[in-house]
């Protein structure tokens, strides 16, 4: 457990020393979400209607943008082979890195989301559901992304490859994340959608570490 926390702590410390990286993701999120009204026009009803979808899609893109770094830096500087040789099972290494990744990208996105919601004139009553759906959904994105990030190690132009691998897998998260907010807006009760998101989180928590760990072992061979 101490070793696991040591790894999480190191990754958080690295992110803290390179704050520009994390800040860039949030700025990307705010900017892309802010650019939509220029494309579709400033009609308030329309914006309120597409708001949840835009927030979810841009959050997803922002996460994708950050995934390449999850294992690549450790792979390139040789830390990864030492982690493979180290006392921690690779599945736990993956979980530690995913937790650090989510804390430095998913969580800041959730903090920034209310600003975008305000921009889109989203009904404040639906805001808690939006944040809750992101709280359940963004860790799934990090977990699925870790598998993609592990698979691209050693490939050229891996950063372009990750979205191709990960994007199709994230569609269910997108569907139920947006559906939860839409249901809240229509006073229909978002509970079932949130429960499904929770189920996705549990399933990916149980399955993805094995897949990513296998990819990492393959990468250092």
């Amino acid at each position, binding site marked *: 457990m*101490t*070793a696991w926390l*040591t*790894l999480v702590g*190191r990754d958080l*410390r*690295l992110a803290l*020393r*390179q704050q520009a990286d994390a800040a860039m993701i949030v700025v990307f999120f705010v900017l892309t979400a802010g650019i939509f009204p220029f494309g579709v026009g400033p009609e308030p009803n329309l914006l309120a209607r597409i708001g949840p979808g835009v927030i979810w899609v841009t959050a997803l893109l922002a996460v994708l943008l950050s995934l390449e770094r999850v294992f690549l830096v450790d792979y*390139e*500087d*040789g*830390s990864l*082979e*030492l*982690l*493979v*040789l*180290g*006392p*921690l*099972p690779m599945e736990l290494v993956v979980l530690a890195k995913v937790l650090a990744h989510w804390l430095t990208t998913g969580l800041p996105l959730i903090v920034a989301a209310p600003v975008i919601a305000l921009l889109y004139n989203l009904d404040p009553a639906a805001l808690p559901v939006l944040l809750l759906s992101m709280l359940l959904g963004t860790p799934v994105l990090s977990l699925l992304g870790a598998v993609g990030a592990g698979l691209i190690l050693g490939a050229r132009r891996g950063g372009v490859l990750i979205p191709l691998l990960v994007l199709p897998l994230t569609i269910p998260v997108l569907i139920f994340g947006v559906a939860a907010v839409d249901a809240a807006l229509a006073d229909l009760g978002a509970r079932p959608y949130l429960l499904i998101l929770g189920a996705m989180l549990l399933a990916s928590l149980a399955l993805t570490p094995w897949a990513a760990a296998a990819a990492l072992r393959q990468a*250092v*061979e």
Partner: protein
Amino acid sequence: MSLFEGRDLVCLRGGRAVFSGLSFGLPAGGAMLLTGPNGSGKSSLLRLLAGLIRPAGGELLWDGAPVLGALDEHRERVAFLGHLDAVKPVLTLRENLAFWAGLGGAASARIEAALARFSLTDLAEVPARLLSAGQKRRLALARLPLTAAPLWLLDEPTVGLDRASATALAEAIAAHRAQGGRVIVATHQVLELAEAQTLSLGDYPGEGVLLEYVW
């Protein structure tokens, strides 16, 4: 007698046999120098002995017990120094070492001892990005004595080192061996190791075994 043993090892990389029929035996406290021309498989052999890659044939024994069936157990015996230094540029030297020490559950007193051994104490609070290539190599070497891993596998450890640091490395290796540790070093340069065996990888060419093992 306790022996770290390899028998008839074959290593395939990208469908090509790098070496074949390689055997050795290293007692506790022993040292082995790997020599051979570029591409003869020194790095591959070290990675194989670390458990990072699996041999295509042959077996590895640690005190008589097969290694390949219990790779996780074996990996914990290994302190590995590859071509890359695994140094995080934004962390200070002490933070870099403290991470690997924390991961292996080592006491913090060992960090100070490791820094002192490679004359890095004065630089302990400096971010590693400011280090020269040789200093980074010393930091990577300082990682070795942090844990009690009995088997050191060193790939070109002296690259970029000045004479004093090379001496410090030789002393660290001697101290490790005095405690019953084993060292295997791949190097082109002269490294003073008392009573070291030499394994010349040029004697175990891979050519000719390709078909036999692919089919």
